[in-house]
């Protein structure tokens, strides 16, 4: 009896094998980040083939044994969102049925995170996606700057929500010469908490832009929300309108003094840039002499590059969670900050069973 127990423990320790890192993206632009991460970890990317067949069905072939191993799948989300999701699901399922022990999705930008609330007769796609990922075999997710932190509650497994702010703050301190004369700006009251957390760490002032300048999607909430909406703008302008029946919206205004300062607008996602452009206009009017946009995820959809190029914005700084090389070619104002270091470190710590607390040491509650 005693000998048997010893033997079992010994076998378990020996069997704690290494880990493998795969990329489930089919396009080369998307695998860039995976390559950077594996270089930092000093490992080879796992051998697999991911492609779309001629009838546009996704095909994934894992070319090595994964039995009993911990597998990390790095998936970046390009324009073709639904295909990227399918690639991830198919690879996860392939690994699950090949007896991988743990399957950890590294999804720096989590898609459909803006569809995380009930809107009329819509679907909470984010919750649907969370269920699908669990069903496909994922046991853990590493992501960055989730659009709403509460999304972590949609998952039945652990979610590590890393932050890009230390990298963006470092960029501000190192690349903006006059940064001590800057002011952090929230482009809407919803972004104020995040802006405040940057302002605190940089010891700078805060300004908030308020009011409607552009027409948003007519997306009236009709009382189906649970709990009932309060008289606030919530989420992104353009996705939800305030519930107040009175159509009088205050004209766009800046609360806080930006005269003679560098304005740094911070947000989590830069997608449609209409409201960023409008914000830059008003900030210029109020005396800001330089305007930066700092955001984690640079989706830069539609004709964002052209609009940014033509606007009063001086620089848009995003991380490499979302591939945006094409947009950079069209708009030299776009700059990239590399966050592969923290993603690689998260992978290393999870595999070694070490604490992740170090990665969150400079993060405030509102970030």
């Amino acid at each position, binding site marked *: 009896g005693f000998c048997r127990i010893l033997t079992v423990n010994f076998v378990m320790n020996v069997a704690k094998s290494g880990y493998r890192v795969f990329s489930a993206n089919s396009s080369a632009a998307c695998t860039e980040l995976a390559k950077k991460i594996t270089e930092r970890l000093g490992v080879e990317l796992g051998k697999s083939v991911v492609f779309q067949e001629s*009838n546009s069905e996704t095909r994934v072939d894992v070319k090595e044994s994964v039995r009993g191993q911990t597998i990390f799948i790095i998936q970046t989300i390009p324009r073709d969102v639904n295909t990227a*999701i399918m690639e991830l699901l198919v690879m996860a399922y392939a690994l699950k049925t090949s007896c991988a022990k743990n399957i950890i999705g590294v999804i720096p930008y989590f898609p459909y995170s803006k569809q995380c609330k009930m809107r009329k*007769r*819509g679907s909470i796609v984010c919750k649907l996606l969370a269920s699908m990922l669990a069903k496909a075999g994922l046991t853990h997710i590493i992501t960055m700057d989730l659009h709403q932190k509460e999304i972590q509650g949609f998952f039945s497994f652990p979610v590590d929500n890393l932050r890009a702010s230390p990298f963006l703050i470092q960029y501000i301190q190192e690349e903006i010469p006059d940064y001590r004369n800057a002011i952090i700006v929230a482009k809407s009251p919803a972004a104020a908490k995040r802006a405040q957390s940057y302002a605190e760490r940089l010891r700078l002032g805060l300004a908030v832009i308020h009011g409607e300048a552009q027409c948003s999607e007519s997306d009236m909430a009709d009382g189906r929300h649970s709990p009932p909406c309060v008289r606030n703008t919530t989420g992104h302008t353009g996705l939800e309108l305030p519930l107040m029946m009175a159509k009088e919206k205050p004209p766009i205004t800046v609360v806080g003094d930006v005269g003679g300062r560098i304005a740094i607008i911070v947000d989590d996602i830069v997608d449609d840039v209409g409201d960023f452009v409008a914000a830059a206009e008003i900030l210029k009017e109020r005396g800001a002499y330089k305007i930066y946009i700092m955001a984690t995820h640079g989706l830069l959809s*539609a004709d964002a590059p052209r609009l940014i190029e033509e606007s009063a914005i001086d620089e848009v700084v995003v991380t490499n969670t979302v591939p945006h090389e094409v947009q950079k070619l069209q708009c030299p104002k776009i700059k990239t900050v590399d966050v592969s270091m923290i993603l690689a470190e998260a992978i290393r710590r999870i595999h070694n069973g070490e604490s992740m607390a170090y990665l969150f040491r400079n993060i405030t509650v509102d970030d």
Partner: protein
Amino acid sequence: MPNIKIFSGSSHPDLSQKIADRLGLELGKVVTKKFSNQETCVEIGESVRGEDVYIVQSGCGEINDNLMELLIMINACKIASASRVTAVIPCFPYARQDKKDKGFFDIPVDNLYAEPAVLKWIKENIPEWKNCIIVSPDAGGAKRVTSIADRLNVDFALIHKERKKANEVDRMVLVGDVTDRVAILVDDMADTCGTICHAADKLISAGATKVYAILTHGIFSGPAISRINNACFEAVVVTNTIPQEEKMKHCPKIQVIDISMILAEAIRRTHNGESVSYLFSHVPL
């Protein structure tokens, strides 16, 4: 019919409309679109509370987009308190990577057959049908082909691939006699069409007078259309599980069998709690 709603995804609105017409219903109001970041957005435009909902979406075109759209629509209907949600998927995607057998699903699956509609088309459109020969382009389709041959009371043949050595091209061997016969190739899918075009050549050189191809799902991806145009088919016949209008413009040999009545009848029977197995051997009028 009370308490039934039919919604269409964006993959095949034409078929959805045909199905609704046959049932004497209007399609339900739904808005499907994509945000500028290409994320799919679905909004059901009418109440589905307590309704028996059917969502028609075929696995064709941009499959992952259409699949995601279907999942989101199903999810939206469930959250909006639909009493039951049934997905009507004429061409089921990823069918060659997994088998679409009942055992692979946790929910009821009705796998309908195009066979009755195919038999009807053959009798109505091929004058020499009584003396034709049904051919399978591979050994795996033997059961499908013998089923049709038996119902028409005609002979069957099959083509199988003989692989001599590892790096040699497969040789196609015809098993059965097609001399002076009209040959009808039958298969479930036409994707790149390499196999059926080779098969047609084989049949002509083995003495067949004409070659027809009848395939349930006309995917026609990659070089399929140009291959068919250059091959010796009398006609290539597919059902409308997948939209074919665009492809027919580039390929006059393609003809379409409408199967909307089979799907409509399946929906009607499911809704009324009647047996669906009648449809396995009969075409509703």
